[in-house]
């Protein structure tokens, strides 16, 4: 209990004094996670729309696969990305190992299934409601997808948020492919792991408190967005 209290004070003082190391680490965490979520949305949303709106051979298998991949162990993803990006691996020539890009790649692999699975469910529900109207109006397939994505935009923030949560809280994969290099690939989670290894539990906890607070803030913002949407659009 003493440690937690001490950690809380430490966290507050880190934040209040705008500790430069902390700002750098938090900044990188946000930057990487937001990038990973952005890329995952770019890939996952069209994929989700495809799965929700069309029928093609292998569709069911893909749906099951996205659901299974939602639970992919990060360490395994990290290992696979390491093997691929290692100088001895197939993409070694790119020299991406131990860079922020490698971390984003690992996070994207972890986030895409989450974004896809949640979005598919949302889009499928919306489509079920809109289908007859859109057919009656003679809406083309492409316009159908864009209309659904637009109308479901608030509901889809949930998908982005879940993806962000996964990306920001993950440690196993980014540790392996990022290497936890100071000032380059050190993010909140790997910093917490490092501090706890150094036995500096107070510092580790303080960083953890900052991370949780960040996550809370982002979730609160998203909650407010969807609540406003519900009131305004009866979404």
């Amino acid at each position, binding site marked *: 209990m003493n440690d937690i209290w001490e950690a809380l004070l430490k966290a507050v003082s880190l934040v209040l004094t705008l500790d430069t190391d902390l700002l750098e680490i938090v900044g990188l965490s946000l930057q990487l996670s937001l990038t990973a979520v952005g890329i995952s949305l770019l890939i996952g949303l069209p994929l989700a729309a495809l799965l929700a709106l069309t029928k093609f051979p292998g569709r069911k298998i893909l749906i099951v696969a996205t659901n299974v991949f939602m639970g992919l162990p990060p360490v395994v993803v990290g290992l696979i990305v390491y093997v691929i990006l290692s100088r001895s691996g197939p993409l070694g020539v790119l020299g991406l190992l131990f860079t922020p890009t490698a971390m984003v790649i690992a996070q994207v692999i972890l986030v895409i299934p989450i974004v896809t699975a949640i979005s598919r469910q949302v889009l499928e529900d919306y489509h079920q*409601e*809109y289908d*007859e*109207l*859109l*057919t*009656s*109006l*003679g*809406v*083309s397939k492409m*316009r159908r997808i864009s*209309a659904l994505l637009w*109308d*479901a935009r608030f509901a889809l923030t949930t998908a982005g948020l879940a993806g962000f949560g996964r990306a920001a809280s993950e440690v196993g994969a980014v540790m392996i492919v990022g290497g936890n290099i100071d000032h380059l690939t050190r993010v909140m989670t790997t910093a917490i792991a490092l501090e706890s290894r150094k036995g500096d539990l107070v510092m580790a906890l303080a960083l953890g408190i900052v991370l949780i607070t960040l996550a809370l803030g982002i979730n609160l913002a998203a909650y407010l967005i969807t609540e406003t949407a519900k009131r*305004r*659009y*009866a*979404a």
Partner: protein
Amino acid sequence: MSFSTKSIMPLTLENISYLAGHKKLLKNISCQFEAGNRYVILGPNGAGKSLLLRMCHGLIQPSEGQVRWHDTSRKDAAKYQAMVSQRTVMLRRSAYGNIDFALKARNIHKSARPDIIDRVIKRTGLGRVINEPARVLSLGEQQRLAIARAWALSPQVLFLDEPTASLDPPATHAIEELIQEISAEGTTVIMTSHDLGQSKRLATDAIFMFRGHLKEMAPAEQFFTQPTNDLAQAFINGELIWWQRRPDSDQAQATCTTLETEK
């Protein structure tokens, strides 16, 4: 507006059947709808009224038989039709956005849309709520918006599925007036209703359905005064007809149908 002078009417159904699983929900229906009329499809629940309407509009495909438009493929004909369904589906946009979306779907140019929207909004009396999100409007307003959305498309044929089913008398009255107005512009109206009074007020032609069969199709005046089908007669008299007779033993004739080839 991109009006075409070509008419897709009349609409002809040729020996239509519709199967859902092993159940035959529409049975060997043949009939013809002429331009400019107001058809009301009547019948008890489960008669297949909505199914028939949706099949005419192209939302479902017949298992047997054909739906034919005059000189036009079904696909092309779809561009000259609009539908208002029983439970209105409103996009999560403003009232204006809902109509705008429908016009965009029909490839009406952006510059032409505001005038069209303005006109239907005025005529449906929705000016006050034009910028409100569609889904927070009252049921009556939503139904009027659904009609405005369909009207904006200037359809040759307007399908309405129980357009006043969940509305109170004033709202119902407003909708009926709109239907009359749209019809007055030359649009063919094909609608379902289980409200006898409404049917009498609106129909130029009546169609009576029972358990997937088209039992009678006749000009309204004739239908409501001397229906040839005894089930229709019972229905008009307000009797609980579905208790009286099994459809298998029913021998009554509808005016333009080929009946009772049940398998």
